[in-house]
């Protein structure tokens, strides 16, 4: 790994977005993911190499989050730094030089407006090379079905925070499986568990964003 790519990777993992960003304090007034990525591309580093390093950085921070070594604010800053890198890499995705791993159709189920967990998952999964079709919160089953129709071969992610909306999640899972038996569904959110996921007919339960990435990557390979 070149020194420049190494710096990008460090900026992503530590959430150093750009020169102006005051966080983390020990990297204050130093270039961030934004400046280093621009420089790397100008100097001929390949977008694939940059993406691979960033994916690893996101995996590292995701692992730390799973182990309670860092918390949501640090994960969000890393995801923001990754998002800035992805802005630089967007033209290479469009030209087909680099490909996304697949599409995740994601939403918080009907009756539930809580979207922070879902947005966090979205940012981490995008940072790991997936395209995310984010349907928002309070998403009715019909909207999920329509999105699946528009994204053949996608994976579906359902989120819920309230125990009282788990019933809506179960209904959505059943309806999706009825119409698209081969579509993989991953569920998450505070009231969920592996057992609840199994009972409602989902394919997997992810306790945190990194676990979701692991399932997605295993299904894509």
């Amino acid at each position, binding site marked *: 790994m070149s020194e420049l790519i190494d710096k990008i990777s460090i900026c992503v993992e530590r*959430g150093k977005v750009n020169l102006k960003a*005051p*966080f*983390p*304090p*020990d990297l204050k007034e130093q270039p961030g993911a934004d400046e280093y990525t621009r420089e790397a591309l100008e100097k001929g580093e390949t977008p694939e190499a940059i993406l691979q390093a960033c994916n690893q950085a996101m995996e590292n921070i995701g692992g730390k989050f799973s182990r*309670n070594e*860092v*918390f*949501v*604010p*640090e994960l*969000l*800053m890393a*995801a*923001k730094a990754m*998002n800035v890198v992805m802005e630089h890499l967007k033209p290479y995705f469009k030209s087909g030089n680099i490909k996304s791993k697949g599409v995740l159709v994601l939403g918080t189920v*009907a*009756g*539930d*407006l809580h*979207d*922070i967990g879902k*947005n*966090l998952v*979205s*940012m981490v999964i*995008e940072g790991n090379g997936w395209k995310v079709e984010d349907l928002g919160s*309070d998403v009715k089953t019909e909207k999920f079905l329509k999105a699946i129709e528009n994204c053949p071969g996608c994976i579906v992610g359902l989120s819920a*925070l*309230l*125990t*009282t*909306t*788990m019933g809506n999640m179960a209904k959505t899972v059943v309806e999706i499986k009825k119409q698209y038996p081969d579509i993989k569904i991953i569920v998450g*959110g*505070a*009231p*969920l*568990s592996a057992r*609840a996921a199994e009972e409602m007919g989902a394919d997997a339960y992810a306790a945190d964003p990194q676990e979701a990435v692991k399932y997605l990557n295993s299904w894509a390979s």
Partner: protein
Amino acid sequence: MKHSLAEKKVNATIFILDLNKMLPRIPNKNIREALGYTGALPPGMEEMIDTAFQKALESCHIQAGYGLFPVEHLSSSILKIGNYDIKAGTQITPRLKQAEKLALFTATLGPEIEKWTTVQATSDNPAQSYIIDIIASLLAEESAALLHQHLADKMKKSGYSVSNRYSPGYCGWDVNEQKILFQLLPKSFCGITLGDSAFMCPRKSVSGIIGIGKNIKYQDYNCQRCKNKLCHLAAKQKELKKP
């Protein structure tokens, strides 16, 4: 003030409180814990939390109020106000058995704070937005606690006690029941409206019920006693604040 809801055949007394004069206080420890930090904060995080707290306070325009309604007990899971059934469920209803009246309450931080709480990759600073969102949730809950305290003090003067406060969406009470509460309160009470899925707008709002009676008691109820281990509040072992 006396508010006649003639078309609903319910008589209620409505009160509006100005909580902006007594801004809710949130201990720094509570914010840290809500963010997940139980030990030392990472470098720079304390400053980030302080900035977020200031922004949250500057954007808060708290409105709170309640209506007092006579209540009947229909069954172990249903309360009745006028012609309206409140299906509060088997966890909440028995705890309000001694209630002679119900206070239907709302508290909101207002809409302005929402411009700071969008947590997306496209936000300038999603981490700060997240921290403000967490602080706003604590402020909204604290506003409800202030209202609860106000009601408890007021009732005590007349020899009445108050129960714990309960909100739709929690303790097995369907969030859709929120529609009934808002039908019983004046339109856009405290500036809050309900969407199709029974969610409140502005989002940082709390609604619920508090029982009032001569023999009702505040119970040392907390999530650890609740049998619903799936609830996210139970997961955090969060205690509801006692008035």
